[in-house]
């Protein structure tokens, strides 16, 4: 990314001082605990303890696979928008090929052969496992919204977040016949040499682009398809919710 894009990227994210990162966790946590000795291991443990006390994400993208037709609009829009603000073009939401999933009648009546797709993305874990071992100010939490996101300008692509992320893509990606490059929900981008994950389109007016542009969502909102819920929705993160997310 060029300097302008990088700057734009930085500008769309909350000011550094507000965000919670590993460093601020450690500082805050130590102060709370009152410990004096500062060894690496102690740092990590303290950070872990502090991590468990972070606010829950107010929003996480939740999908209903029985409504998904695998059009990949979410992937494409995610990629395009992030690239337009200087971030990684790796889609952070992926459609998984899940043949066992049936399509709800309301949608199947239009597209009967397009069952078997499940949208999946970062689950905005209540305990942000990816965060404590980040050696830079890359992984952050927005204190106002609880959004767990990567400040890609700071990311050095060490890969620790990928190791620590507890959530895999269960299955193959639907795009391009099922190739899967990464196994975890945080993904390496070789083009920019950073890691990327769902950041709820932080800085975007209108919020997550995948939710805004999902064609099934639009068909439901216009009344063309009758459904009480959308295909892609924003829900508040809880332990219970986390278990239900794809």
């Amino acid at each position, binding site marked *: 990314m060029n300097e302008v894009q990088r700057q734009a990227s930085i500008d769309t994210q909350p000011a550094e001082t507000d965000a919670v990162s590993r460093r601020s966790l450690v500082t805050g946590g130590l102060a709370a605990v009152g410990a004096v000795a500062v060894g690496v291991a102690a740092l990590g443990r303290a950070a872990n303890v502090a991590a468990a006390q972070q606010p829950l994400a107010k929003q996480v993208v939740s999908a209903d696979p029985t409504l998904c*037709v*695998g*059009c*990949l*609009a979410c*992937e*494409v*829009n995610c*990629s*395009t928008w992030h690239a337009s603000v200087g971030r990684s073009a790796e889609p952070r939401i992926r459609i998984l090929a899940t043949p066992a999933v049936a399509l709800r009648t309301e949608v199947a009546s*239009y*597209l009967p*052969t*397009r069952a078997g797709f499940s949208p999946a993305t970062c689950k905005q874990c209540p305990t942000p496992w990816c965060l404590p071992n980040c050696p830079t100010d890359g992984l952050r939490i927005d204190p106002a919204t609880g959004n767990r996101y990567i400040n890609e300008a700071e990311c050095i692509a060490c890969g620790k977040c990928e190791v620590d992320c507890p959530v895999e893509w269960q299955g193959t990606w639907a*795009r*391009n*016949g099922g190739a899967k490059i990464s196994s975890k929900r945080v993904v390496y981008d070789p083009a920019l040499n950073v890691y990327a994950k769902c950041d709820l389109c932080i800085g975007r007016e209108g919020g997550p682009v995948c939710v*805004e*542009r999902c*064609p099934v969502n*639009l*068909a439901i909102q216009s009344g*063309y*398809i009758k459904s009480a819920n959308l295909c892609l929705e924003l829900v508040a993160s809880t332990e219970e919710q986390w278990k239900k997310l794809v």
Partner: protein
Amino acid sequence: MKSFEHMSPTSVQEAVKMLSVGNARVIAGGTDLLGIMKDGLLPTDRVVDLKAIPGLDKIREESGELRIGALARIGDLASSALVQQKAPALAAAAFAVASPQIRNAGTLGGNLAQKVRCWYYRDADRADCYKRNGSYCYAIFGQSELHALFDGAACFAVTPSDTAIALSALAARIVVAGPKGEREVGVDDFFIGPAVDYMREVALAADEIIVDVRIPSTWSAQPSVFLKAAPRKAIDFARGSVGAAVIGSPVIQKARISLGAVAPTPKRATASEAFLEGKRLDAATIAKAAELATEGAKPLANNAYKIRLTQGLVRQALTRLAS
């Protein structure tokens, strides 16, 4: 139509420079561009006419390859004895394009780089369409009989060019000229899908032009066929098409089978190609190859017929190659 500048460069470098301003578009035969301009689909402030550049229309043999300049007329490709002999699939595809009038005016470069025919994209009232920088695809829940079985991603429009399918079966390379000079790209990489960039169909920057198309000697010596199915015997774009070429007889060493009208780019039937390696073409292998060609297809509401159609065309193409 709003006013626009019309430029007539006399060299490739000049043309490339003229394309570096915003909303500049290339015109050769104009059979696609004029419709796009008149329907107001893409803003056009400058039209760069390539027809005054000499030497870009030659159909010739060079270094053992069949090479065709981007400004060669489609009609000339269809009637060229050299093309008919060295690349029969390409001659057949050229002959299948549109109508005699369009073939007289249209060029190979234009045929390859043309925009999609999706009726939502081509409707100025549907401004939301992804390909016009919008945020919606009407075909997903709309009238989708023209649209893709494979590789749709946000946009489901299919590749419209007949010559592209033939060239994909012939492993052609496309020579592109830009500000930094020339580069070559394989035809299957030249066509990009919406997942890469839904605003473009081909890997051309705004200030690049196609200058040459080259068919390697390995494939230009081999038998090849092109078949097209469309609502009428002329004028129409394909609802299904197949370009196929094989090396080796009676046992196939290598096969290339490319499918048209089923994906946003020419779609190689790689499973069929792999299956045919080392086999003879007979009724059973042909039937199996045809079946494999459409594996993984995910139709929309109105385009499931393309599955049977494509299988039928593959069967017919391979049957022709067998004889």
